[in-house]
């Protein structure tokens, strides 16, 4: 008899446990963030880390308030491999579709990382009506131009980091400062053979020439190039004083080592220079990266005081991952999650159309300044002033540290020239 009671009591208890856990599970059904990222590459893993950090912070604070119900966030990552040479764009598209159909992603965040893949994925996002916030890698102006051209079709696509045209403006302004300070006006452009770099290199060359710079040439290097000596010697022979580099391939580190070894009298300016962005760059080049300038697209990816949140993010990232933010996708991917949370809470629903409307009204002070989207293009509004818009960061390697030197509103130091340029 007593044994029967125990069995019955256990069964009731078990049923109650299952039932209550079912209820709580339903109440806390996670919001799935699908992240198509090229995880073996800097712009993939930095974004993954930024997103994960933000998700952990939000979940620790109780989750996202969706119409009065707190729901946690869940990250689903698929490696798109789109930054790897020779991997077709279709791989990234498969990853996006799998995230939507198989992993049941409510939103797409982060990538695809390569511009070509991101552009190709726009139709998929439109087909499935999935809100996406690009936060790393893809810099092509064609992305937001496409949204503007066919708003109704592509209104689900947002980009929260800087794009090539703005970067060109930023770089040009910085180049003009260098010209005013040191008299360097002869520029040689070296770009990687990918859409955003080719386009940006051409735009930079045209615009800089109009501003009175003497453009000595533009070399395009296929992804995977391992020797830049002939290009560097050509730049030297033509009297270049600034090397404008636009490359996200790992081999760009070779370019900088060769620049140092050959003592090329031209300041290396990485408009996009993945190798130089990483804190480990100094050790890996044994200090040969000294004086190299690199654009990390948004503040927060290198130490500065752009906003009250900048160093909080920087330190939290370092504490969580054991190293400082590395690439251009760190702070923007982190902010993409916070901006999405803010939009969902204002919309009170996960409905794509309502979240789109809420994202268009976003206005919050983030890690890299005031974050707002242009309602027509869905591109984050940039500025040189963090109080007005998303502010960028150009830093220079100085004695093993990444010192932000531009824009002046967030600068922590001044640009220096290598000694062989002063001779």
């Amino acid at each position, binding site marked *: 008899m007593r044994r029967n009671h125990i069995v019955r009591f256990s069964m009731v208890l078990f049923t109650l446990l299952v039932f209550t856990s079912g209820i709580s599970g339903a109440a806390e059904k996670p919001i799935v963030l699908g992240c198509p990222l090229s995880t073996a590459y800097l712009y993939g893993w930095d974004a993954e880390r930024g997103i994960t950090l933000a998700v952990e912070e939000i979940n620790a604070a109780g989750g996202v308030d969706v119409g009065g119900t707190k729901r946690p966030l869940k990250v689903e990552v698929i490696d798109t491999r789109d930054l790897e040479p020779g991997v077709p764009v279709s791989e990234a598209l498969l990853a996006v579709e799998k995230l939507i159909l198989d992993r049941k992603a409510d939103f797409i965040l982060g990538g695809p990382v390569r511009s070509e893949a991101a552009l190709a994925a726009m139709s998929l996002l439109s087909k499935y009506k999935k809100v996406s916030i690009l936060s790393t890698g893809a810099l092509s102006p064609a992305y937001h131009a496409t949204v503007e051209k066919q708003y109704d079709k592509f209104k689900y696509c947002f980009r929260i980091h800087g794009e090539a045209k703005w970067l060109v403006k930023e770089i040009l302004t910085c180049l003009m400062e260098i010209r005013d300070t040191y008299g360097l006006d002869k520029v040689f452009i070296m770009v990687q*053979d990918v859409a955003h770099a080719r386009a940006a290199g051409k735009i930079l060359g045209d615009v800089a020439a109009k501003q009175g710079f003497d453009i000595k040439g533009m070399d395009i290097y296929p992804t995977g190039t391992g020797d830049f000596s002939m290009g560097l010697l050509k730049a030297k022979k033509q009297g270049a004083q600034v090397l404008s580099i636009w490359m996200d391939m790992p081999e760009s580190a070779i370019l900088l080592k*060769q620049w140092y*070894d050959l003592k090329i009298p031209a300041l290396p300016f990485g408009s996009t220079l993945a190798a130089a962005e990483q804190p480990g760059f100094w050790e890996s080049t044994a200090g040969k990266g000294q004086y190299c300038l690199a654009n990390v697209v948004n503040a927060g990816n290198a130490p500065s005081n752009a906003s009250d949140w900048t160093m909080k993010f920087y330190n939290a990232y370092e504490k969580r991952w054991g190293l400082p933010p590395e690439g251009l996708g760190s702070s923007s991917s982190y902010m993409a999650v916070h901006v999405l949370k803010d939009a969902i809470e204002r919309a009170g629903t996960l409905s794509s159309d309502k979240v789109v409307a809420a994202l268009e009204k976003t206005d919050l002070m983030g890690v890299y300044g005031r974050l707002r989207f242009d309602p027509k293009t869905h591109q984050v509004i940039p500025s040189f002033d963090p109080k007005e818009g998303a502010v960028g960061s150009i830093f220079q390697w100085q004695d093993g540290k990444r010192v932000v030197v531009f824009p002046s509103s967030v600068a922590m130091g001044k640009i220096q020239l290598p000694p062989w340029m002063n001779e």
Partner: protein
Amino acid sequence: MEILIYGTINSVALALYALGFAMVYGVSRLPNFAHGALYVLSGFITWTVLNTLGLNYFLSILVSFAATAIIGALIYQFVLIRIRGMEISEIIASYAIALAILEGMRWAGFKGMNYTLPVFIEGSTTIAGVTVDVHRLIVVAAGTALFGLLWVFTRYTRIGLALRGMAQDERAALMLGIDSDVMAVVAMGMGSLMAAMAAALLLPLGNIVVESGYNVLILAIAVCIVGGIGSWGGAVLAAFIIGFAQILTVVFIGPHFQQVVALFAIIITLILKPSGLFGQQKELEERV
């Protein structure tokens, strides 16, 4: 002068990439598609021994030489020997091994741009008005010495002569008491050792990335096809042809087309002389 100096450096680098591949194919008729993976693996072994065990740099290099040679020999002994003579299977199996090695390294965390090895001697010098960094000159000197040593080894040592015998006529070598399986293992070990030597010389110029395994394989195949698959001398000559063609392309057309040169050379060779410059395979068919 720039073209001459950098053309020579580029050519020696290409020859270093290709020599191990040519040796393995020459002796055992095995297209070792894991060659590029062994190159990268060797670099990561050196890096790991140097940075985690704290061993002296040159000792670390020696450890990687030994480890890569042994791994190459084991790959042959335990996998490839079973499918020897079945060319398609050999290609598929060795490429699968390459993928396993390269993607395994990526999975193990060897990704990113921070894996680098120090150059042997820092600094640069000027030759006839052209600035060259010292390590590149070391590459040329060490590469030339390696080709010389290989020539001596294959002509004046018992193992070297046995390898040449195998390369010329395996059945005749068998009749003379040469164990073809043992020699094939030795050739694979030596081919892997050469990949490791190329890595030790060339990787300090850049960084160690998994993707370079695929590039090295493509370049090695291009050099061997142009030179004549299996011909060691042909590989060296082809390396110089492609190496200079690449540098001339960079100077007169643009770096954009540099990587096309190797692939273009493969196509031209396969159309005009499929056996390559010094290849004996298919030569009779071509004459007929």
